[in-house]
């Protein structure tokens, strides 16, 4: 490669950015899988740009935890107008940055729980669950799993949002016995991976009987691959929820567009894209209902969810219990 090429390329990229400067730009910072061509990003961008007279730009940043770290790195200078993809385990820390403004949207949300957060607005949600193969032995509760010989792959709570979700799940179901549940689970855990993809890949390769994922994961296999061999295990303690939210950055230079986007986010055009691209439940059920196949999914009887403040307060202690129990 010619050494003069790179500055030139960087320069061209800059020109390309400024050429678009006449149309207002709304920058949405989100996690990676949201913006890929298989994610919700492209369809949502097209739908919003058809009405807003603006350029909607997604910036992908790894997973949900990376998203928060990125925002904290950028601080008040961030160019992002919207941050989309945090979950309730992260919103307390996000709120603490003081970077967010009230979302101001009132919408009828179809969540199994009441939602009152003034700064963060849900766009989808799901239940964590162990996903295994249909027709094979299943556990019926966390305790049952811990007592069984079944093998599972989980994610590390320190580097993965589902991993953190399981930590909270155990802590919410067994506030005082979490340490002993983890100790009993230790011999069931084949391994702990740093991210969801590694764990899910290992499960598909047959390394474990089940993997920590979502109740909606079987829907992907059913709808996209016409494969009904995956099932989510229903647990008696109930299932911890992941509620994914978006927030408006207080220092945005496009407050009207940001408001318009948040209103759009809970409308049909956005919500109908979610189930078969993000493989989660939409925060507002679209008028046409959920796609065929979703009715086959296991629906937990009990929904567990800590408030962002409780989740933040319990996190470090729960992590210590986890680490001690699994390091024996």
């Amino acid at each position: 490669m010619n050494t003069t090429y790179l500055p030139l390329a960087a320069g061209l990229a800059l020109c390309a950015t400024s050429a678009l400067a006449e149309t207002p730009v709304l920058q949405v910072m989100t996690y990676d899988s949201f913006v890929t061509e298989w994610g919700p990003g492209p369809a949502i961008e097209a739908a919003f740009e058809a009405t807003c007279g603006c350029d909607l730009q997604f910036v992908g940043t790894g997973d949900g935890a990376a998203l928060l770290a990125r925002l904290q790195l950028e601080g008040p200078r961030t160019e992002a107008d919207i941050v989309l993809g945090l979950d309730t385990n992260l919103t307390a820390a996000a709120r603490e940055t003081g970077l967010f403004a009230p979302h101001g949207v009132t919408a009828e949300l179809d969540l199994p729980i009441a939602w009152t957060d003034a700064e963060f607005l849900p766009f989808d949600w799901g239940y964590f669950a162990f996903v295994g193969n249909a027709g094979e032995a299943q556990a019926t509760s966390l305790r049952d799993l811990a007592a069984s010989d079944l093998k599972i792959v989980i994610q590390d709570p320190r580097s993965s949002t589902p991993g953190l979700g399981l930590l909270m799940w155990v802590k919410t179901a067994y506030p005082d016995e979490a340490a002993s549940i983890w100790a009993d689970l230790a011999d069931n855990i084949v391994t702990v991976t740093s991210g969801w993809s590694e764990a899910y890949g290992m499960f598909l390769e047959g390394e474990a009987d089940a993997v920590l994922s979502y109740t909606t994961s079987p829907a992907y296999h059913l709808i996209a691959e016409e494969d009904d061999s995956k099932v989510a295990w229903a647990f008696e303690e109930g299932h911890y929820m992941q509620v994914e939210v978006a927030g408006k950055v207080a220092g945005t230079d496009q407050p009207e567009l940001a408001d318009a986007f948040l209103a759009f986010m809970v409308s049909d055009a956005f919500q109908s894209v979610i189930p078969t691209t993000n493989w989660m439940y939409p925060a507002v059920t679209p008028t046409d209902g959920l796609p065929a196949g979703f009715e086959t999914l296991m629906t937990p009887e009990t929904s567990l969810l800590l408030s962002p403040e409780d989740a933040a307060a319990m996190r470090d202690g729960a992590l210590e219990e986890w680490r001690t129990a699994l390091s024996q």
Partner: protein
Amino acid sequence: MAHSPVPVTPRWPSIVATMLVLSLTFGTLGAVAWRAEWASGLAPADWVAVRFTVVQAFLSAAISVLLAIPVARALARRRFRGRQLLITLLGAPFLLPVIVAVLGLLAVFGRGGVLNDALTALGFSPISIFGMHGVLLAHVFFNLPLAIRFILQGWLSIPSERFRLAATLNAPVWRLLEWPMLRVVLPSTFLVIFLICLTSFAVALAMGGGPRATTIELAIYQSVRFDFDLGKAALLACVQFGLCVGAAILALRITAEDVTGAGMDRVVQRWDVARAGVDYAWIIAAAVFLLVPLGMVVLRGLPGIFDLPDTIWAAALRSIIVASGSAILCVSMALALAVRGGMLIAVVGVLPLAASGLVVGTGAFLIVFPFIRPADVALLVTVLVNATLALPFALRAIGPSAAQVNADYGRLGASLGMTGWAWVRLVVLPRMRRPLGFATGLAAALSMGDLGVIALFAGQAEETLPLAMYRLMGAYRMETAASAALLLLSLSLLLFWICDRGGSANADV
């Protein structure tokens, strides 16, 4: 390194290279530390992580190097059809993205893998791969190829005259020629692999089976991503650098002085080629261990390789451009450093290995962010970082022969009054074609497969092939991702092969 006069080469290329290395290692660390709010020191759990990291890195490096010696010796002594192809293929595991290699290994050694199927069929109980032995297995799988190549290079650098002389005198080749060569080559090979394993994170955790297998790099991840405690991340990164510098100095102290001396640059012929069976047994064992998991990667990826979406091909093209750019930059820097030599450069040369990927990325982000949109410079930063991260390998590949050229031809060059470019072009480059080709190929292939900092910087339009592959996996597209992984593997190997062959077109290896 050079005790005799050597031709004068300009200082500035080595200074520029040193500055780039220092700014991407200590500079990015400084940026992170400067931005940090200093709240906490290192907790006991962090020291447990440090201990685990050092132990597994030491064992991984020791096993890799010990196993590589007989394999490299066998490859150096034997000539057979497909030898060159085999040597290239044996290098492949080192070039694989972590997650692909792990899935390949599991397909062989995992619960549903070939090995356990065979054990069960024979009536034995299946074995579990997860634990310390799994970490070591994975690290040896990754690094044995590198160790074989480095040690093989050492063997091939012994001048043919020595073997001829030894054969004439019926002298012991091992004691007089091979062992002295190993004493030069082994410490630096061990060091490089030790440092690679020192910064391992996803492999150690996934194969280690749980939080017992927490490495320093994972603790850094936790500090940045989970606690947003940049101060602690910076401290942990300092520990990593401290270990690196300590190990580098130790390795340099026990490295023997190169005593093989100059030859006539002729093709090596060997007369001590008895016991061919043992040599071929080593070659076959290494090939099975390294190539069967690779075969699994190929098998998984093959069905969908022609149905890959256009974005993957675009990402592949972007990756090739980035890889070519960083390979050229990397080898230029390595050459600049190698022709000057010296202790400081030896330390600078291994520093990037001890750099935490996350700290480098975060620091670079903090430096760039106030001035420019990170996505606009994503590919440029990736070229710089990848070139720097590959520098230790390139330097390790060309360093010994650069020192040898200085030692063998330095006096001649100096007496002829050769300086600067003329010396490099007429004497150094032709003597170093083989290691330069190897180094370029290695740098290109490493850059090709490296996820590196791109994940922190890139938007959709700057996606490279490894990043695209990870994003596919994140979107449940495991089969498409497997095909993308195969494409990545093929392109990395192809780039490596082109450069490697280019360097040794008229050589006998």
